[in-house]
């Protein structure tokens, strides 16, 4: 029987929530990596038993963990046999994320804008997002802070930067948002293996059409009034971008303010906030079978990161934006002051699409009917940083 596995990254560890296709009775496993921040975990579409995890700590730095058995056991890639270290130089350095230097000078490739407007060198802090290849379980991308994109082609044992992104020329105009300067969104085009979209706070969205060698900003149509030039090519605080795999040229974006849509692979954007009560928010996602059905969770403002009026509501558009309906059945109707962070919503691909999101209050809500009704799976986890779903045969 089909089922789902919900992968939840939290401020103090990871959890796996499992259910059959009815999605009513849930089994909760975890915490894994207890006490560590798990920014993100995601399964390989090519091998659902392969799960990659970003495990991080202010004290001990960045670790990459991997499971090859659906989350039953974990290891750092290439370092599985702890009892028998191999002599000689290590072949696997799964936690080493080192930025490329300029090939010409050997010096740092570029600098970025600091809070005071001066230029600042790139400094690696953590992995925000892991994105496994759609076709190869051993290929996986990592979006990191300070913003850059890395790729591993050996199952996470070693990582190389795709430095054409930082090196294409706009780097000195990128700047950290309140959460740091992070690359948080990676979208792989199912119809074109050479095309990847990424998004950075606060730089904007970018696209490569040659597998990561060359990149260009795709922010035309975005308006950010906090910037000296609100329509600048880069500098926008994009919170998340989503697409439907059947229409990879159509993108949906939750920006710092504004919900946006592009119908031409990001070359041009238009606002589709429509009748939302507020167009500030972090998450955005697309129904698994209806490419024009979107979900967002409106948040009151950039200064007050909680739902308007203390009422937690998902908003759904069945028209690709502009016309939105509140979805409240089963969600808190009062006194709710949580946030839903940018990577904390996902959909499954069962016939009746399931929608999931996690909150900074430690709740994970699920809807087995495309958002019409909701119920909590768990209510007292640590702050939820990310939610992903695997649909299992």
């Amino acid at each position, binding site marked *: 029987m089909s089922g789902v596995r919900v992968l939840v990254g939290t401020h103090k560890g990871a959890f796996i929530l499992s259910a059959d296709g009815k999605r009513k009775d849930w089994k909760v496993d975890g915490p894994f990596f207890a006490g560590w921040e798990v920014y993100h975990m995601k399964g390989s579409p090519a091998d659902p038993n392969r799960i990659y995890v970003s495990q991080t700590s*202010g*004290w*001990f*730095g960045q*670790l990459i963990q991997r499971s090859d058995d659906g989350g039953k056991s974990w290891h750092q890639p290439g370092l599985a046999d702890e009892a028998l*270290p191999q002599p000689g130089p*290590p072949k696997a*350095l799964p936690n080493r994320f080192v930025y490329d230097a300029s090939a010409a000078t050997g010096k740092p490739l570029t600098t970025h804008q600091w809070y005071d407007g001066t230029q600042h060198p790139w400094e690696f802090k953590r992995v925000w997002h892991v994105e496994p290849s759609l076709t190869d379980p051993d290929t996986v991308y990592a979006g990191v802070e300070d913003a850059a994109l890395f790729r591993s082609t050996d199952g996470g044992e070693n990582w190389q930067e795709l430095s054409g992104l930082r090196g294409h020329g706009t780097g000195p105009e990128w700047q950290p948002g309140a959460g740091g300067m992070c690359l948080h969104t990676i979208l792989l085009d199912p119809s074109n293996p050479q095309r990847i979209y990424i998004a950075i706070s606060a730089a904007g969205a970018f696209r490569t059409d040659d597998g990561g060698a060359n990149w260009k900003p795709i922010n035309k149509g975005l308006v950010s009034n906090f910037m000296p030039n609100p329509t600048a090519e880069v500098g926008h605080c994009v919170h998340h971008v989503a697409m439907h795999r059947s229409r990879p040229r159509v993108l949906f974006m939750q920006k710092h303010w504004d919900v946006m849509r592009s119908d031409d692979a990001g070359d041009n954007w238009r606002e589709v906030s429509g009748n939302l009560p507020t167009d500030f928010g972090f998450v955005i996602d697309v129904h698994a079978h209806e490419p024009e059905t979107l979900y967002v969770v409106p948040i009151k403002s950039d200064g007050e990161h909680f739902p308007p009026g203390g009422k937690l509501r998902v908003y759904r558009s069945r028209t690709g934006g502009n016309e939105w309906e509140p979805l409240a059945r089963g969600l808190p109707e009062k006194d709710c002051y949580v946030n839903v962070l940018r990577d904390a919503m996902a959909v499954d691909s069962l016939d009746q699409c399931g929608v999931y999101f996690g909150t900074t209050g430690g709740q994970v809500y699920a809807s087995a009917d495309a958002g019409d009704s909701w119920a909590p799976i768990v209510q007292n986890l640590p702050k939820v940083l990310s939610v992903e779903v695997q649909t299992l045969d």
Partner: protein
Amino acid sequence: MESTDKVTVRVGLPYHLRNLARVPGDAVVEVAPPVTLGSVLDALEARHPVLRGTIREYETGQRRAFLRYFACGEDWSLASPDRPLPEAVAAGSEPLLILGAIAGGD
């Protein structure tokens, strides 16, 4: 003439690093003299590759900011990696302690 026989050194790790290395108590490593801060950490990372990058930064080898080193009651955090550790550490009767900063937060 200095002996080249390896000696056994104990290293006390923070809770999370003990879990990572799967050691129930002190980590135990074999170190060729001279027993210095650097040679002990090199041996520790060679014996437990999962600890690479968690104590010292990958590229620079610098101590991570929120960790401190102690030996025989003295703070060795700012010591040169080439400075020999106290005889009691080299003899295995005292551990080299690696401590995480008490850094509040949640």
